[in-house]
């Protein structure tokens, strides 16, 4: 048995065989061939095999995920049948080179042509050509490429890093958990895993090298421990633990669609954080009272150009409609820092977390921002929308962002396009300057939402992606608690509400403190919502006020943590 440790990214226990999702190197060498006909036959056989595989995946995708998701495979099939590719490869083979080399050359020259074209759709076809070429090459070279779509048994995925697009593809029926070499607790794959309710461990650095395909794995998403080929005794122990956990989760289901109220009758709102419209389903299934944070970045990522106003409008409208009047806080584009959009061609920065990101970028690239604002405004008629600006550092930034929003609203109305009569406009509080001036901001904003991941990072001047200073990620430190208190008190004086959409909102130690500080809305990963409701239903706000008061006077994060654990 081997024990491997990583960062506990998404709670729960998962067990199963390892499925290594690591792309093999496909090395192609140029060879002279003597019999072109044999070589061409070999090429056609490989193409046909890949076509058959694609057809199987296509049909399965259509049954499981619908026609729209299956269309990607239609595009692949079309490329694979294209005479431009087939004939060019045949010509090159006839001129005396091997099929692998001919295919690679053909593919590269096509990609070069397509990348120069000034059309988003065409540039996307580059991905199809690359994908199809890779599969045929693998077939020719007798190398197996692991494919998420071909998994038909319960497995633990082991991979270097999971892109958001890949995380979405994971079928929770078979993918019981995942382990990555890279990433941190707040990386996108970790956030997505939590929202999908899949246990995950990230940042192991070596998992893909240590784990072999088919090894039996126990993944403990709460402790960050990975047991590779464990003893039967350990398997039994974890089976029992898992069963207990499942009983607990089952018991929480009674809280679905129930209100969240403290013992002394204070009504609290539990909301969920989402990244894509598809996640709304899980939000509703878990009975959250709203969406406290819709991260619009995913609309902009994993593609080659900006999303159009129409695409954005459809996404926002879908979320608002599905939530049927429940509040939905949509955050405007928060890009920069650890999230980059290569197609914006922004200059590389020495300190991206302190650089041109989020609202700063939007205020500089106003066309991009105005497009998003128009999409939001047009969608505002379809539900209970609240617009939120990220990373506001000064009151001028907020005023400018709001001004642009109102300008776009006026323009739309002048063109007779309907916009909701009222909608709230709020800001994220994640920079200490904004927390300190919260009493000024509170006069102008409709609400605050505290983003703790960044607030902690900026308060302690410690990069949250840098493992050498990870000890400074201290959510319970009285410095953070005092900033949170300033924000909540300032808002309540003006009759405004305060939410929290950072990690802390779903944390069992932080929740009693936040109730004591008077937080109105808690927004968290979908998978934590029922547990948080259960906890809050058992707390008395008057008692938590005392608890928070004492915590605020303490010296360190450690002290606060021990104190809270002893008291509750």
């Amino acid at each position, binding site marked *: 048995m081997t024990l491997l440790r990583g960062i506990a990214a998404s709670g729960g226990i998962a067990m199963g065989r390892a499925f290594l999702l690591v792309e093999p190197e496909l090395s192609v060498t140029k060879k002279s061939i003597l019999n072109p006909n044999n070589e061409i036959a070999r090429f056609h056989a490989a193409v046909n095999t890949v076509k058959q595989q694609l057809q199987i995946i296509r049909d399965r995708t259509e049954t499981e995920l619908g026609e729209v998701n299956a269309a990607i495979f239609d595009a692949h099939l079309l490329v694979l049948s294209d*005479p*431009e590719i087939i004939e060019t490869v045949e010509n090159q083979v006839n001129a005396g080179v091997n099929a692998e080399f001919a295919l690679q050359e053909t593919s590269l020259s096509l990609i070069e042509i397509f990348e120069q*074209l000034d059309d988003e759709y065409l540039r996307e076809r580059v991905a199809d050509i690359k994908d199809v070429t890779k599969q045929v090459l693998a077939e020719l070279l007798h190398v197996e490429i692991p494919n998420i779509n071909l998994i038909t048994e319960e497995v633990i995925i082991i991979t270097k890093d999971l892109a958001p697009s890949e995380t979405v593809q994971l079928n929770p029926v078979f993918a019981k958990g995942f382990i990555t070499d890279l990433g941190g607790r707040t990386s996108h794959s970790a956030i997505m895993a939590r929202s999908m309710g899949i246990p995950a461990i990230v940042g192991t650095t070596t998992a893909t090298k240590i784990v072999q395909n088919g090894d039996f794995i126990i993944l403990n998403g709460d402790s960050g421990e990975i047991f590779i080929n464990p003893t039967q005794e350990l398997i039994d122990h974890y089976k029992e633990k898992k069963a207990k956990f499942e009983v607990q989760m089952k018991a929480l289901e009674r809280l679905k669609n129930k209100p969240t109220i403290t013992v002394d009758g204070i009504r609290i709102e539990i909301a969920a954080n989402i990244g894509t419209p598809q996640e709304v389903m899980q939000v509703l299934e878990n009975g959250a009272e709203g969406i406290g944070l819709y991260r619009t970045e995913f609309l902009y990522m994993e593609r080659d150009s900006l999303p159009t106003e129409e695409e954005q409008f459809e996404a926002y409208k879908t979320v608002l409609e599905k939530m049927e009047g429940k509040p939905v806080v949509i955050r405007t584009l928060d890009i920069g820092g650890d999230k980059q959009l290569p197609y914006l061609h922004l200059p590389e920065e020495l300190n991206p977390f302190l650089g041109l990101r989020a609202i700063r970028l939007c205020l500089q690239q106003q066309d991009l921002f105005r497009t998003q604002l128009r999409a939001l405004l047009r969608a505002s008629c379809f539900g209970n929308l609240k617009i939120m600006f990220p990373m506001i550092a000064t009151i001028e930034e907020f005023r400018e962002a709001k001004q642009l929003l109102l300008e776009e609203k006026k323009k739309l109305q002048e063109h007779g396009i309907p916009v909701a009569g009222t909608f709230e406009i709020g800001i994220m509080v994640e920079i200490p300057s904004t927390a300190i001036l919260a009493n000024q901001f509170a006069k102008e904003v409709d609400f605050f939402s505290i983003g703790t991941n960044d607030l902690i990072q900026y308060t302690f001047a410690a990069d949250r992606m840098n493992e050498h200073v990870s000890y400074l990620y201290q959510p319970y430190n009285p410095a953070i608690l005092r900033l949170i208190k300033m924000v909540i008190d300032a808002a309540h004086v003006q009759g405004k509400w305060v939410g929290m959409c950072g990690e802390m909102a779903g944390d069992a130690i932080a929740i009693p403190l936040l109730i004591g500080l008077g937080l109105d809305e808690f927004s968290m990963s979908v998978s934590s919502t029922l547990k948080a409701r259960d906890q809050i239903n058992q707390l008395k706000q008057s008692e938590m006020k005392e608890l928070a008061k004492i915590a605020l006077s303490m010296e360190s994060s450690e002290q606060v943590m021990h104190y809270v654990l002893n008291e509750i």
Partner: protein
Amino acid sequence: MKKKSYVIITETGIHARPAAGLVKVASKFSSTIQIEKNERKANLKSILGVMSLGLGKGQSFSIYIDGEDEEEVLQELDQFLKSEGLVEI
């Protein structure tokens, strides 16, 4: 051998959907069919070939057809281009 020239009038040019339509029409026939823009020719039975020409609004292109059914091919392609509003009637 038949040849006919056109100017594209649609805002979006010949992007993927109409290109796929053209390829579908062309593929029904046995004739050799080529599409040419700025002296670059592509096989009209290949979606990658057609799209790689990047045909945008205001640009002109020619179609060359060679084969037994060339008259029929020209009629059908001409009709497709016009009915889709890609070129002037």
